[in-house]
């Protein structure tokens, strides 16, 4: 069930909130589990069965691990079994779906990687063994984060389930965040996606230098507004049900270096990879080669998060190269550069990265690169590309504007200056955004 569908927005969500708050506080996690199961049942029944079995196995293995003493080798074997089983499930199903051209089951990555984290955490003593199967299952299949994350550590989630008091006064923030996510996706993400698809539909002869520059720009905006929109929705929904989820994007397109960008884009994935791969590998405590290897593993997996494709691997490799260059060659110069220039530097390199990200093959990406630099013998602009740009120009301008922190700064300034006015303006703005988004969902 897409979070931006009308059946979710105006039926499932209000009904879920009503059910959740009708239950006494101690039993609310049970209600939330029921709601999540119902959501999963409607959205992807095969995935629900598969992942419930997998989660139950992790739960059982966790209890088994608890029986053994700290230094017992069997504990390690069980931990490896949990990790191995989840990774096999993740990659196996992912490859199977990719080969058959089928959609990846809902929540596959979120559930399996949470399971991996749980296994490692209880082995290291960083998380408590879970004795409540319902809470364990809920942490894995909590419906708000199933569609697009964020990826959260088990212990972070476990602490919050059913414990935190959610009251009416505290609901405004999460609802606003949810509406913000819906608007990001419906009002900017979807049009940017349509523009990008129109550009990819151009025959090579119809391409121009201009259209080739537009392509990565649209791809970057579409990806950002779709993913960050879904993450805002998840965080907003989480807040409504008393679960605080971390942010996944922090204005990545105004980063001051590529290293900074990696830390702001898909933050929960970066953080997960750092916790479970980069730290155990020794971070940057070794020499240059060891550090490069450690960063390399994390960055490549960061790229492969989007799918098992050679271009995603190259995307990760591209960032690895730039991060290493920043660390060892021009990082210090970047810090001294005025903000404007360092942001232009980063955004240009990120834009180029989307040429790799979106290419169907390395050859296609190279064709786009050459074209962008004016080396492919393409016209500077064609009427087709100008026409397309004219149709989507306002969306593109708004997308660039809203990908920066400027709107947030204005909102914060207003809140500081006049909280009452900010509250009224917020009510007006968010209700207009919701009405507009509903219109755009009905008439995409």
């Amino acid at each position, binding site marked *: 069930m897409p979070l931006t569908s009308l*059946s979710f927005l105006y039926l499932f969500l209000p009904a879920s909130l009503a059910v959740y708050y009708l239950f006494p506080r101690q039993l609310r996690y049970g209600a939330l589990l029921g709601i999540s199961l119902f959501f999963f049942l409607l959205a992807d029944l095969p995935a629900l069965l598969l992942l419930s079995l997998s989660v139950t196995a992790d739960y059982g293995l966790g209890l088994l691990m608890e029986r053994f003493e700290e230094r017992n080798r069997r504990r390690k074997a069980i931990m490896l079994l949990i990790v191995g089983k989840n990774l096999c499930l993740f990659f196996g199903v992912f490859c199977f779906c990719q080969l058959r051209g089928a959609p990846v089951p809902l929540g596959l990555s979120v559930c399996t990687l949470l399971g991996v984290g749980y296994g490692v955490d209880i082995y290291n003593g960083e998380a408590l063994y879970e004795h409540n199967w319902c809470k364990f299952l809920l942490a894995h299949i909590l419906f708000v984060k199933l569609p697009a994350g964020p990826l959260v550590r088990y212990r972070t989630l476990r602490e919050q389930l059913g414990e935190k008091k959610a009251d009416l006064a505290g609901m405004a923030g999460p609802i606003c965040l949810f509406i913000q996510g819906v608007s990001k996706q419906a009002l900017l993400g979807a049009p940017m996606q349509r523009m990008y698809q129109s550009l990819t539909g151009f025959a090579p002869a119809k391409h121009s230098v201009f259209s080739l520059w537009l392509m990565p720009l649209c791809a970057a905006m579409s990806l950002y507004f779709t993913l960050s929109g879904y993450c805002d929705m998840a965080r907003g929904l989480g807040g409504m049900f008393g679960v605080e989820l971390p942010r996944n994007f922090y204005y990545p397109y105004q980063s001051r270096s590529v290293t900074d960008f990696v830390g702001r884009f898909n933050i929960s994935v970066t953080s997960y990879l750092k916790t479970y791969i980069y730290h155990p590998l020794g971070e940057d405590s070794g020499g240059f080669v060891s550090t490069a290897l450690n960063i390399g593993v994390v960055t490549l997996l960061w790229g492969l998060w989007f799918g098992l494709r050679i271009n995603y691997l190259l995307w990760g490799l591209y960032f690895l190269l730039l991060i290493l260059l920043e660390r060892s060659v021009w990082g210090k110069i970047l810090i001294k550069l005025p903000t404007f220039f360092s942001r232009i530097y980063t955004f240009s390199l990120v834009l180029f990265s989307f040429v790799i990200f979106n290419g169907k093959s390395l050859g296609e990406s190279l064709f786009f690169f050459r074209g962008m630099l004016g080396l492919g013998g393409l016209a500077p602009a064609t*009427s087709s590309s100008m026409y397309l740009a004219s149709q989507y120009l306002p969306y593109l301008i708004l997308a660039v504007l809203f990908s920066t922190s400027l709107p947030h700064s204005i909102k914060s300034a207003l809140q500081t200056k006049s909280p009452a006015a900010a*509250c009224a303006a917020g009510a007006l703005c968010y209700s207009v955004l919701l009405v507009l988004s509903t219109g755009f969902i009905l008439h995409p």
Partner: protein
Amino acid sequence: MRSQKRLSLFLLLLFFIPGILFLLGGGLGDLPLPSLSELWDGGANDAANAAVEESFFGRDALSYMAASLQTMLGRNQQNGCLYSTDGILQNLPDADEKITAENLAALQDYAAASPAPCYFLLSPTSVAIQQDKIPSLALDSLFNQKQYIQRCYSALSSRFHTIDGYNNLFAHQSEYLFYRTDSRLTALGCYYLYASAGEKLGYSARPIDDFSIAHPLHDYCGNLSPLVPYAQVKPDILSLFFYQRHNREIRLIENPLENTSSKELYDLSLLNGADPLQVYLGANGGVADLVADNTPFNGRLLVFTDGGCNALFPLMAIHYRQIRVVDFRSATASQLALIQPEEFDQVLFAFSLDSFGYERILSSISGKK
């Protein structure tokens, strides 16, 4: 704290009210109960969402608002159509070359076996003629219909007489040649095709003043309206041409292969039906005859067509004793088998480019269906 509570309550109501209105409007009954197979393949969700969208409170107003805003922001294309307040134009992709070659080969085969001379009229669609309604930047990306028609014509052998409808239509591009909300030609558009075809078919086209024109329908919304449902386009007007001279009476026989009773040329009751354009050739039974009384002409014309210019044939009928019109889309194999081409003096293939370039239309006519 209090203002936060109020804000929360207000925002919550934004989600609750549409849901409650949906339920009060009987929406719950419209929600389909999912079957196990629908749950298994994810279809349950789509069905439920479609039901909610269908009965959503204020759906039309919200969609209209979104469409207006999108148009204001520069959007003028939807579902393969270009639109403006002047009308909806179907933007055709490049024609399918393989299908075109097959259709042309089928035409050649037919002409080789036919004792009667064959004629071919390939009419362009509105997007090629009404270029003044299209943003100049979009023109380059349009499929070049003129070139395509010329290519098709030159691919046919000398056994075929080709009819140029393009230039005459283009010369009158500012007139009401195509419906604003339909992909088909208006009666006036068909009149210009009729005028263009006269020289090749051997009749002298009557000036437009020889016809009295009635406009019995003023709120026609054609087949393109559902593709751009909230475009602010005025509905269309349907016109009927009546030849006023020489007391000539043209009558229509629907399904003449099984029926001989004729009726008046235009059955006005069809204007209230699902497709008011059926008024030109009757409810579509696949085959229709137009027969003329009090006529000095003895010619018989067999027409294979696609329904794109049905208003053309009542005009042509004043120059023939009989015109048999076969709609390739709805004619059955048994109907086609009963048609005797040797009974006719001329055979006309009148197709619109939006079917000829994309559908295997002649395999059915040549019996290869």
